[in-house]
């Protein structure tokens, strides 16, 4: 975490550069604390690359049905076999990655933005506002997120935007909580006091001075919740509340594959591995970084 004093006579531009530089070297240091973070980053980056390049590298059209080749095992033509409609599993997994990552990234970015704002403001303002807002967040947090997502998607109808809304909704309270705790500590620090004495507005103090200090924790949570979001999206699709067919989604592919598990296990197997790899990579990444920023563990390794 950067601890430079922004309330000194540094011009805005050079302060910004300073922050960026500190953030950059801080990040590399954080990654080095726990080498598994690099592995997670590499794996996740690789999956993102595959997802972006999917239309170029997928050997077949993910929606192209080839009835003559239905339920074929892995072969040179179809590396991961074909499903009940004769569609190429590998191509569907590659295209499914786009849906999973897109839903995950958009919903978690939204939750991060809204949740962090709520936590930051509640922690900064304090008093009754803080108590009431956090009580509401705790109540929402108590409710099983999969069930909440299930109900919201069921009522709104399964579409990409509704899935994003449902997942974002369940992820807002944890971000509010994680942002509030350090805010309460940081707002008492000298540089915030100094800023206040200089007559900075509350918004400037929150956005320019407190936010950079709580950002590392929020971002680490972001990786861990991205993993959760991808898992929840796949779970909803498995229950039958995913993006409607024939669009390829990992959860939906496992759902279809489950019906043929007795004779063609690869239908469910390969998309299962795909989900597992992405979620595991994100957990490795987030978990390693969390160790790096955890003050209790700092300076030990």
């Amino acid at each position, binding site marked *: 975490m950067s601890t430079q004093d922004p309330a000194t006579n540094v011009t805005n531009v050079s302060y910004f550069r300073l922050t960026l530089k500190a953030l950059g070297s801080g990040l590399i240091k954080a990654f080095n604390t726990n080498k*598994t973070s690099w592995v997670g980053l590499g794996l996740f980056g690789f999956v993102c690359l595959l997802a972006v390049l999917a239309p170029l590298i997928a050997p077949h059209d993910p929606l192209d049905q080839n009835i003559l080749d239905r339920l074929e095992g892995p072969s040179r033509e179809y590396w991961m076999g074909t499903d009940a409609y004769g569609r190429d599993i590998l191509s569907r997994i590659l295209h499914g990655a786009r849906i999973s990552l897109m839903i995950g990234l958009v919903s978690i970015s939204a939750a991060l933005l809204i949740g962090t704002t709520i936590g930051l403001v509640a922690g900064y303002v304090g008093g009754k506002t803080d108590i009431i807002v956090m*009580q*509401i967040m*705790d*109540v*929402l*947090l*108590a*409710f*099983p*997120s*999969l*069930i909440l997502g*299930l*109900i*919201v998607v*069921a*009522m*709104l*109808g399964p579409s990409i935007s509704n899935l994003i809304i449902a997942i974002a909704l369940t992820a807002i309270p944890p971000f509010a909580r994680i942002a509030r705790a350090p805010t309460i500590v940081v707002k008492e620090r000298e540089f915030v006091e100094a800023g206040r004495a200089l007559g900075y507005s509350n918004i400037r103090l929150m956005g320019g001075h407190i936010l950079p200090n709580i950002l590392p924790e929020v971002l680490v949570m972001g990786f861990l919740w991205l*993993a959760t979001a991808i*898992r929840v999206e*796949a*779970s909803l699709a*498995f*229950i*039958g*509340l995913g993006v409607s067919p024939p669009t390829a989604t990992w*959860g939906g592919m*496992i759902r279809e594959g*489950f019906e043929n*598990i*007795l004779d063609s*296990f690869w239908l*469910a*197997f390969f998309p*299962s591995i795909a*989900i*597992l790899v992405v*979620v*595991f990579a994100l*957990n*490795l990444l987030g*978990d390693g970084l969390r160790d790096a920023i955890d003050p*209790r563990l700092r300076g030990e*390794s």
Partner: protein
Amino acid sequence: MSGFVLKRMGFAVFTLIAVLTIVFFIVRILPGDPAMVILGDQASQQSIDLLRARLGLDRPMIVQYYDFMAGVFVGDWGVSMVSGRPVISEILKVLPATLELTIAALILGAALGIPLGVWAAISRNTVPDYIVRLASLLGLSFPAFVSAVLLLFAFAIYLPWFPVMSSGRGTTFGARMNDLALPAINLGLIMAAYITRVSRSAMLEVLGQDYVRTAKAKGISFSAIIWRHCLRNTMIPVVTVVGLYLGILIGNSVLTEIVFNRPGLGRLIVGALNQRDYTMLQGMMVIYTLLVVVVNLLTDLTYGLIDPRIKYS
């Protein structure tokens, strides 16, 4: 003691009312008129109005809210749109199966997770620690349905040790256990992954305490330090976190029940979703809320049993 219990119970009732209020409004604020959702796009306005009247949706919001809340507390949760039977009796019929599964999973998770976590903490930054940490991280990366499908394939189809479909209605104890085994292992392994991580970090925290150093300095044997000085102090965060993970456990139990085709709340809620059984869905949310609130209350009360220093004041 009784003052604390009363305070916690008061808080539990408050949470219950708050969540129920949210449930009530979520179901009503979301676009999509329940009557229209139930009847479909093709329904005539007349039949929609009729159903709205039958569901009581044409009454003022405040009256609906009062009826809903009063109903929840006297056990009148409405009537299923599909079967016509009271929602509460449908739920109570399958609740034992779900409780059986989740409790078995918790026991398995704790029996596996706590020793593994403690072992990893003791052997910090050595090979066993790395292996346990990596394995637990992998375990909690598994979506419950993925692990369930893999387990089903491995131990019910490839090696036919367990039934593919567990009826959950075995009459003898042995038959029940046989039905329960794979679903409980599936849920239990995921729970174990979470519990291992908490136990490890809680144990590490305790190992750094002054009284542990003092005990070491006094020459007490290592195993006595772990058993007598550390374990109990490790339990508080573990119990807290297990309480917090209830939501995950419930979500995973839904997925597990679907894969193993086991009767329970999970299959009930998915059936209600598919058949657009709106009253049943509302009842499901009420029962989940009740479960969460009750478990949180129990978690709070357990602290005193583990740690007598926590004064109930």
